């Protein structure tokens, strides 16, 4: 069930949920009790992603991205998705190429000619919020306010192809930009460690991990490693997201593949080059068939399409450990 409302202003559509409607979802549909939520990716995507949903994810295509969850969304051929595309290189072309996504809030549209051509062909509609604007919309959602102000976007054409508004600031009298809150239907977070309840830890920087978890109707965490719940209480500064924001936990070693997981494994540049090279429907179809449709799940993908030897090599290459703990 898609929760957010679509608004239309002129030629621009945007997702907006009244903060009170989001709050009622949180009150009635998000559990506070510590209960195990460990499920398979198949179960998580089937239960928590619906056609028409708005999806955001953290971090990037090449680093700590929730790639196994994105592939599962494609495997299940969710339809008419709306993507908050930030630090996207390959997610948007793949989701559009598979027929899953029809609208993209940009952000960064994605890498390569395929996605650009899809926009030119009208197969996907875009709205231009910019990276900072999207991050701020999610922060507004996370703070329970209907908008946040910013001193960028002003003067640019992005203002005309988004629902950002200019008002007169009552304190300075100057023009200021407002962006509306974004409450995505689903946030995907790929993390270093999680427990079965949903407590989750990221090492390194993030785009808006806690913001997205607070702002989203549903949160799916995929984790390289499942750890004991007690770990989080021993070290509360390291907790990125507490369990009660999270709806499902998926154990996904190599879940960021072909991207890197800092301090765990490096990028598979050869595989990334194959993604970067996709230009035609035919190439897109072949990639999806080989890497997604012809394997039952992430485990089979790793086993049959990546292989233990390559995984070992990518682990070996991850030599920068400092700071990621």
């Amino acid at each position: 069930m898609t929760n957010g409302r679509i608004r239309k202003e002129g030629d621009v559509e945007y997702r907006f949920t009244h903060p009170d409607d989001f709050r009622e979802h949180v009150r009635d549909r998000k559990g506070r009790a510590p209960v195990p939520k460990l499920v398979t990716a198949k179960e998580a995507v089937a239960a928590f992603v619906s056609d028409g949903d708005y999806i955001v994810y953290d971090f990037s295509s090449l680093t700590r991205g929730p790639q196994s969850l994105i592939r599962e969304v494609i495997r299940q051929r969710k339809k008419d998705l709306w993507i908050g595309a930030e630090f996207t290189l390959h997610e948007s072309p793949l989701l559009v190429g598979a027929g899953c996504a029809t609208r993209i809030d940009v952000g960064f549209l994605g890498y390569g000619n395929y996605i650009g051509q899809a926009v030119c062909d009208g197969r996907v509609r875009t709205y231009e919020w910019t990276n900072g604007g999207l991050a701020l919309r999610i922060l507004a959602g996370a703070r329970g306010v209907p908008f946040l102000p910013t001193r960028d976007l002003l003067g640019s054409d992005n203002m005309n192809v988004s629902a950002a508004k200019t008002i007169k600031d009552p304190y300075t009298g100057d023009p200021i930009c407002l962006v509306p809150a974004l409450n995505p239907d689903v946030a995907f977070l790929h993390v270093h460690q999680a427990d079965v309840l949903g407590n989750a830890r990221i090492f390194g920087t993030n785009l808006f991990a806690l913001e997205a978890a607070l702002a989203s109707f549903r949160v799916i965490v995929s984790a390289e490693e499942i750890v004991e719940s007690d770990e989080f209480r021993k070290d509360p500064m390291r907790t990125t997201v507490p369990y009660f924001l999270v709806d499902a936990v998926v154990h996904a070693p190599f879940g960021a593949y072909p991207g890197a997981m800092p301090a765990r494994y490096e990028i598979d540049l050869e595989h990334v080059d194959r993604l970067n090279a996709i230009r035609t429907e035919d190439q897109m179809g072949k990639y999806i068939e080989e890497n997604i449709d012809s394997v039952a799940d992430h485990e089979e993908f790793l086993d049959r399409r990546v292989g233990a030897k390559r995984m070992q090599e990518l682990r070996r290459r991850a030599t920068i450990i400092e700071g990621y703990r």
Partner: protein
Amino acid sequence: MARTVEFTDTEFMIAQGARLIEDGKTIFVGWGIPQVVAMLAQKLYVPNVTQLFEFGAIGPQSVLPFVRGTMGGPQNTYRSLQWLNMNWAFSYSATGYMDYGMLGALQVDPYGNINSTFLGGTFRKPERRFAGSGGGNQVASHCWKTIIVIKHEGRRFVPNVDFLTSPGYLDGPGARERAGLPRGTGPYRVVTSKALFGFDERSRKMTLLSVLRGLSVDEVVKEMAFRPLLAPEIGEIPPPTDDELRVLREEIDPARFIIRGEKMSAIG
């Protein structure tokens, strides 16, 4: 000592960009070529520059070689002063802590307005669509001095950008402030593969400051779809130094993935 140096247009653009960065200052670095410029600068010229990236790395000291396409990987994030997130990163720039911003561009106009969204057609029916702003809009809006790094090709220097992704001086003097953008900010330099431009203090129009040694002003200006202002004296930019080329070719990009380009030469 004079001798002919051979290099690519990309190498020259990166090298002259690196020479512009001040030590002991802060710079907000955009995706792609600006990352390489910052790496070269920090390696050779400005050990105490603080780089900042929109993904929340404050002051990283990149591990070389550069892993192409990455932004936010452990190599780009190594030995930072602080790891945060995007909303915090843009708080540093919004409060005036970023002295410089450095961005690439598809198109730039005489006021330094940047297009990185589409070329030709209309927004809804573009002829070619590109990645869009990323964080470029914020960098160009917040930083004190924005440096634009762009290949010197005629189709990139246009009287009007097809889409104003990231603000330059908009339509002229005072326009940024009237729009509500932070006072006293705006484009500072345009670094190209042939020349260096600034912006006239009065008219806010792009002004040719200097050209690669051996090129004439006409050779530079004819490859632009608008005529820039000319500084009273046009300077001469030396080609990449041996050190610059060595660091670029051996340390930053040994696979020559980024620095390849059109071959050029000049007297070193």
